[in-house]
């Protein structure tokens, strides 16, 4: 079994230090603009911040992967090139990219820096991945969260690059890189602006009976009785009505977290090179807890022992969790 790299979220310089201290083999991050897919207020790095953070991470032997994984709209490509050039100057260990134009720019101008294909590229077949490897010398693919473990095993055997899969965090339901729901409602694009359900368009409205309605832009996404915790209004996690379905329902999926702890040994033996924890928008406390727990679990499996699954399951305590498409194709 390959010792997999634990790839951890770093939404801020302090979260990066926390992840490094908790045992991350690599951290991923982005700049404070549309060039990355978590372009949220209060998140991400300025160029000087990244420079300092990379030096800190490297001093601990932790790699830094820079996400430049959105799709520059025509007329704005320079912002993405500047992000790449800055990352190169700073000495990041790899770029995570989705756009063909951006991948080509890196491949031509910074051929010595590793290229990872972002989940946003939605490369879901060996052919798609081989294309990116052939054209841009991609070294690793982050697989879409739509494949089962046996499918991942087949994939890893069929492609000439490393495989990274998500193991924990937000459970994205739409194929990443192929969703414009947020743009349809708010005018900001997930692909072009790096935002999903932007906070500025979110409203929580409590009625006299204590029910909480959540809205995004002009539309109601969900309504929670006073006994429920109101979730963040992400379009694909809302409740809607359809003639074919009795009563309001989660038309896409319940708000639920991805937790593949129980599948960890299977994933590792399937040839996965890197295990990714989602959550650049999460707190330092969260990063510390989750990274620490998965560090222990991975080390334990490598030592031939059973991981303490219970500790990992407890990470999502109080929340529903799923193994999503990874466990079985009945999810589809």
């Amino acid at each position, binding site marked *: 079994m390959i010792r997999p790299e634990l790839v951890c979220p770093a939404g801020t310089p302090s979260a990066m230090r926390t992840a490094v201290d908790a045992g991350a083999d690599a951290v991923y991050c982005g700049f404070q603009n549309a060039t990355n897919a978590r372009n949220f207020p209060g998140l991400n790095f300025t160029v000087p911040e990244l420079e300092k953070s990379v030096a800190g991470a490297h001093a601990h032997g932790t790699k830094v992967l820079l996400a430049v994984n959105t*799709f*520059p*709209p*025509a*007329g*704005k*490509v320079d912002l993405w090139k500047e992000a790449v050039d800055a990352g190169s100057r700073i000495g990041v260990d790899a770029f995570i990219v989705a*756009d*063909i*134009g951006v991948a*080509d*720019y890196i491949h031509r101008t910074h051929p010595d820096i590793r290229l990872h294909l972002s989940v946003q590229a939605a490369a*879901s*077949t060996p*052919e*798609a991945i*081989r*294309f*990116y490897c052939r054209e841009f010398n991609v070294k690793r693919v982050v697989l879409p969260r*739509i*494949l089962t473990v046996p*499918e991942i095993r087949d994939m890893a055997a069929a492609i000439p690059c490393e495989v990274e899969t998500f193991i924990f965090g937000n459970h994205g339901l*739409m*194929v990443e*890189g*192929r*969703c*414009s*729901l947020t*743009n*349809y*409602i*708010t*005018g900001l694009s997930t*692909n*072009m602006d790096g935002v999903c359900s932007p906070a500025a368009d979110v409203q929580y409205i409590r009625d006299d009976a204590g029910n909480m*309605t959540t809205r995004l*832009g*002009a*539309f*109601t*996404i969900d*309504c929670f009785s006073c006994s429920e915790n109101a979730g963040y209004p992400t379009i*694909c996690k*809302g*409740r*809607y*009505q*359809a*003639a*074919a*379905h009795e009563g*309001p329902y989660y*038309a*896409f*999926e319940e708000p639920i977290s991805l937790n593949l702890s129980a599948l960890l040994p299977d994933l590792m033996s399937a040839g996965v090179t890197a295990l990714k924890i989602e959550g650049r928008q999460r707190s330092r406390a969260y990063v510390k807890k989750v990274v620490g727990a998965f560090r222990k679990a991975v080390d334990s499996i490598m030592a031939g022992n059973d991981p303490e699954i219970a500790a990992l399951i407890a990470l999502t305590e109080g929340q529903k969790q799923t193994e999503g*498409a990874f466990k079985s*194709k009945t*999810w*589809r």
Partner: protein
Amino acid sequence: MAVSELMKLTIAPIPFHWDAQTKLDFYARIADEAPVDVVHIGEVICSKRAPFFEKHYDTVAERLTRGGKTVVFSTLAEVMLPRERKMIASYCAPSELLLEINDSSALWHLEGRPFRVGPLMNVYNEATMAYLAGLGATHFSLPAELPASSAAILAATAKSLGVTTEVQVFGRASLALSARCYHARAHNRIKDNCQFVCEEDPDGMPLKTLDSEDFLIVNGIQTMSNSYVNLLPELEDIRDMGITHVRLVPHTQDMVAISRIFHRVIAGDLSPDEAERTLATLNIPAPFSNGFWYGAPGHQRLAHKPVAAA
């Protein structure tokens, strides 16, 4: 304006699961009566639907060709399963077929063969367009969410590369794809035992918000806008920026009548205002939208304002 300079009208692949007879009737009418230049055939959304119509492609293509239409075969937008990978490989094999691809899996097979790039491929900028043109792409149908400011730059880039461009000007916009079938889910089924419930909704399945407002449309693994994109007032700007083709997405409404309206506006025989009034008589079951074009929320319809060519 000389006829040869008119923007070309295209019919997008049918996104919905219509039965074979309905599709045959649709294409026969389009072949005989619709003033369109290009017609896309092929199943783009769900590989499970494909076998129902496969045996008719040759007949339909021949009929459309006889009607003077250029026939383009559009490929699957989401490719995962071995069966789907085989479909892509077989369509991409060398042949005379004009191919529009909608997933990057196809790119692996296409070396040395010309191809068209569908709107479900992520071509947002001039660098990506130039790269794919270098691989043999001859035509780019731009993503539905791309704003006019970027479309103008891509149209100019295309011209310099010697390739052509297209934007959707009518019909529901594709907003998202998923591995999960949301049609099956609404019926408490999963994709593997869906029993083709999507056939019950020939214009897609409406999703309403909890306060009963029309919101989105489910079409199998695809989520679409409830609103119909309508860029009639913007057609002149689209032409002026150098976009060569405009696309109509098929719905159950009278697509021949709709294509005539767009054709007359393109030909300068009908003002956009008059066209709008005629379109209003055709029972379109949802509001119109153009928000994406103006960089606004996609569901909105903004008053026409000219966007400069690049």
